[in-house]
């Protein structure tokens, strides 16, 4: 027998160090770019330098004849075989869905759109030969401004569609039966426009793909993707290659943040190219290619009207969005802003709510999911405008929140947006956060600095957020016209020696599923943490799955795991009973073994049972000789993490520079499997939220060139630019799943941005500033002050 690790204690709740780390710390990682296959060729892509142009000539003949080049082709050469890129979320019946080909054929619609391809023996030769491709572009008018794009006289991104309007989607709480009529006036009516700037997800690993057609009809795709299962399905659906002949592997993936929740032109082009040449083809993008080609996030205009009474009670909220789709629709592009539709009410209870979103095409890189996807935008808007209400009423912003939020005894609570929040305790999280921050002391210091008219002013920003995560109940997705379900799959394989292989349909890229899933299964089966191996990201081993995004992996995939474990225990119980010569009902499962009730020393472990099914010499009649199981979980509702983030900023009123002095967050993500991992997710999420508030913005010039096309211009913050993050938790278990878990991956990003901006505006209130557009660069802060200067 092999040795078995020491008997487990309770794993859930332990800060287990990660199983994933060893290979990552030693450089033995399997990034897609690290994989080399026999006979592998390299692909380089020629991209449009124009934001909108007709292709009148694409001549690849000189490139084809260059040294070391195997072939070169343009869109027209593979028009029949390259397939199309699908949008899985046609949000309305009359949505405008343009054809999206991997390589442009007749027209390019954003800078960076792929035009032609070279396949060569080595990467340098492929890149060199791009310079030999001759392309004639006939420039067309460029559409960039969201509001101008909707005017009758605007040039069109897609001339065949007759409009730049992609869709208009409305949620009216009164019509939906979850709310009352919008007040026509109110004692207080506040209107504001906020702009969510365009962001770039910018995972540190650029996207990379290898397509290997050399497996006797089978095509293997290695891709740095968050969604191997979806990729396989869509390749099959759009290229004509049968699904069972496609195997997708997501090896180690270096971050995603929604940026790899995508099916990309580059994957499709590599697929076509590999099939054309019959050899493996690799493509790894450079960072400057990522910036123009991989999808961007956010980029919408928010017009809000908040109605309230003088006593501080909010009575209604009207939200109108104009959302930039970019030139094409990615896999969930139209749906991203709508994920916010159910969140503009935040943690508050008010009777009237209306939401309307219009999607607009422009000659820019497409937008799609970026960490939080719709919910950061919603949280930003409501948390900013609640501060405005506080100013209007002359109240502390926390007091206004207290007067409007759902009290802990009011859960479960049916919201005006039609969701049922199962649990939460906003009071507890807020009290803890205020105490850790030293809220009252900082308010005192702020008052002193105001009196002294210090050049450096202090501001305190609040964000009391909730979010919906754990995408998603399939029925709700169906009602929202999404093209797939939201279930997740897990299977358990109990090996003869009692070791366990766990196969998950989630596809981690930094989240630590191998560790956390081991902890869950260890408790469920009484198997040691180290005796469990978690397998993922290969459609041959993990046949079914819907992958990792939307803070869904634990809340959906983790529950599937629990269900699969329950089935293993159920089978094992019968076998244990047989071995112990008792009835299954005489057994209880505790401390990792089945014990005979009343005679606890008579017991059998899962390992005992697994050996019994392996030999199958002596099983009860009618029992299959296996403990293996599979389960699929489709959640009945979302989960709703919440928390309170507080940010104290020092704003230099002369230079406009902002320094975060103290950042405190108390998050409630339900039951915690691994506190270390949860804390890490919060840190990273907060960093990205701060980055939106202070540093990052994708900027186009008036011709549609991306001016922030590299890390030299798109300023991702370093350690020196970010503060220490003081994080703590409260723990209110979700009642909607057996683990009591919520999601944590996006919470920090959702919460942090308004906390920071509210703090900046709070610092500058006495001077009359009520908004600083994001990112709040030194110049923008200075300008905001200048505009209100007497």
């Amino acid at each position, binding site marked *: 027998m092999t040795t078995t690790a020491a008997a487990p204690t309770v794993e859930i709740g332990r800060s287990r160090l990660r199983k994933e780390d060893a290979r*990552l*710390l030693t*450089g033995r990682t399997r990034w897609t770019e690290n994989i080399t296959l026999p006979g592998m060729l390299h692909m380089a892509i020629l991209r449009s330098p124009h934001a909108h142009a007709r292709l009148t000539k694409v001549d690849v003949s000189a490139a084809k004849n260059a040294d070391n080049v195997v072939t070169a082709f343009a869109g027209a050469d593979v028009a029949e075989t390259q397939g199309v890129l699908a949008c899985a979320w046609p949000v309305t019946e009359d949505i405008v869905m343009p054809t999206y080909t991997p390589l442009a054929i007749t027209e390019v619609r954003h800078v960076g759109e792929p035009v032609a391809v070279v396949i060569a023996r080595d990467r340098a030769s492929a890149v060199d030969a791009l310079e030999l491709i001759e392309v004639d572009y006939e420039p067309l008018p460029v559409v960039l401004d969201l509001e101008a794009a909707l005017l009758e006289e605007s040039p069109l991104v897609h001339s065949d569609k007759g409009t730049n309007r992609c869709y208009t989607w409305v949620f009216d709480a009164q019509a939906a039966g979850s709310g009352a009529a919008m007040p026509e006036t109110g004692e207080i009516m506040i209107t504001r426009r906020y702009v969510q700037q365009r962001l770039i997800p910018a*995972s*540190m690993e650029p996207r990379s793909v290898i397509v290997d057609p050399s497996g006797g009809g089978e095509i293997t795709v290695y891709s740095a993707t968050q969604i191997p299962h979806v990729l396989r399905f869509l390749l099959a659906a759009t290229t004509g290659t049968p699904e069972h002949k496609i195997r997708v592997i997501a090896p180690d993936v270096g971050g995603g943040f929604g940026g790899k929740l995508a099916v990309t032109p580059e994957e499709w082009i590599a697929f076509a190219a590999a099939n054309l040449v019959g050899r493996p083809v690799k493509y790894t993008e450079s960072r400057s290619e990522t910036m123009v080609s991989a999808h961007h996030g956010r980029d919408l205009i928010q017009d809000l009207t908040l109605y309230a009474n003088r006593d501080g009670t909010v009575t209604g909220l009207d939200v109108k969005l104009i959302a930039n789709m970019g030139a094409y629709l990615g896999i969930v592009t139209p749906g991203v802003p709508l994920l916010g539709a159910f969140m503009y009410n935040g943690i508050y209870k008010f009777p009237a709510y209306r939401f309307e979103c219009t999607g607009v095409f422009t000659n820019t890189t497409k937008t799609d999911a970026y960490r939080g996807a719709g919910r950061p935008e919603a949280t930003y808007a409501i948390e900013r405008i609640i501060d405005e209400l506080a100013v209007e009423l002359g109240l502390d912003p926390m007091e206004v929140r207290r007067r409007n939020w759902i009290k802990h005894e009011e859960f479960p609570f049916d919201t005006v947006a039609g969701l049922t929040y199962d649990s939460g305790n906003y009071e507890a999280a807020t009290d803890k956060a205020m105490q850790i921050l030293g809220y009252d002391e900082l308010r005192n210091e702020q008052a002193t600095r105001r009196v002294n008219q210090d050049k450096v002013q202090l501001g305190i920003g609040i964000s009391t957020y909730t979010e919906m995560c754990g995408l998603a109940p399939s029925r709700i997705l169906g009602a929202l016209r999404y093209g797939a379900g939201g279930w997740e799959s897990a299977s358990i394989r109990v090996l003869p020696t009692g070791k366990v292989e766990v196969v998950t349909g989630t596809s981690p890229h930094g989240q630590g599923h191998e560790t956390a899933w081991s902890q869950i299964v260890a408790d469920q089966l009484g198997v040691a943490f180290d005796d469990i191996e978690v397998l993922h990201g290969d459609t041959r081993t993990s046949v079914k799955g819907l992958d990792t995004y939307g803070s869904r992996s634990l809340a959906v995939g983790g529950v599937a795991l629990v269900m699969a474990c329950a089935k293993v225990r159920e089978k094992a119980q019968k076998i244990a009973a047989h071995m112990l010569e008792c009835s299954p009902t005489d057994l209880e499962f505790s401390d990792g073994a089945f014990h005979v009730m009343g005679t606890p020393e008579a017991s059998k472990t899962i390992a005992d049972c697994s050996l019994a099914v392996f030999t199958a010499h002596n099983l009860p009649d009618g029992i299959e000789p296996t403990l293996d199981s599979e389960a699929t979980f489709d959640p009945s509702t979302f989960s709703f993490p919440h928390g309170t983030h507080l940010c104290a900023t020092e704003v230099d009123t002369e230079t406009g520079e902002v320094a975060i002095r103290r950042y405190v967050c108390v998050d409630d993500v339900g039951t915690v499997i691994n506190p270390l991992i949860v804390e890490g997710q919060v840190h990273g999420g907060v960093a990205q939220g701060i980055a939106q508030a202070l540093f990052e913005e994708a900027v186009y010039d008036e011709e549609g060139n991306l001016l922030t096309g590299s890390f030299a211009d798109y300023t991702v913050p370093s*350690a020196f630019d*970010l503060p220490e*993050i003081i994080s703590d938790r409260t723990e209110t278990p979700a009642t909607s799943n057996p683990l009591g878990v919520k999601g944590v991956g996006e919470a920090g990003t959702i919460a942090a941005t308004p906390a920071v901006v509210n703090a900046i505006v709070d610092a500058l209130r006495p001077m009359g500033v009520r908004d600083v557009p994001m990112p709040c660069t030194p110049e923008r802060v200075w300008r905001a002050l200048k505009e209100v200067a007497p």
Partner: protein
Amino acid sequence: MPRVTITVDGARYSDDVPARTLLVHYLRDQIGKVGTVVGCDTGNCGACTVLLTDPDGVPRAVKSCSVLAVQADGTQVSTVESLGGDHPMQRAFHEQHALQCGFCTPGMMMAAVDLLRDNPDPSDTDIREGLEGNLCRCTGYQNIVRAVRAAAAEMRSAPAAGSETDAEAAAVANGVPTDASADAEVKV
């Protein structure tokens, strides 16, 4: 094509390389040191950070995407592999959960090792400033700062700690100047 001889992680390599070959591509594509990765094309992200001996033989953190392989001729390079597997920096990154996706991690650790050579007892601010050339998108840097602090404490108390399998490379990683003649003896 120019010929280069570069000692990498204690082993000497000699190759003809096109002059335009970046050191990082030489490390990855020619000699298989794929622990060193490329995250950008402007020298900003630091994912490709390795130690490279300067003309005085002192190992210094550099971005191997901003050095040509030919410029590294005659030098010693230490990649993440030189840390072995049980270097105090690796242990600290593991124990403090200083990595998530792990893509920036090799470069981050090499930059941190370099920092500690200059400043064995850095404050949190020193660490943040010292790592300003390395971007991480996952961790918010907080646990990286913790890890570097923890590694510093351990390395101060046991300065010789490091790889047991590759003493020479570990010496380079720990900032001890070495002479090229020693390389052949420690080749593994």
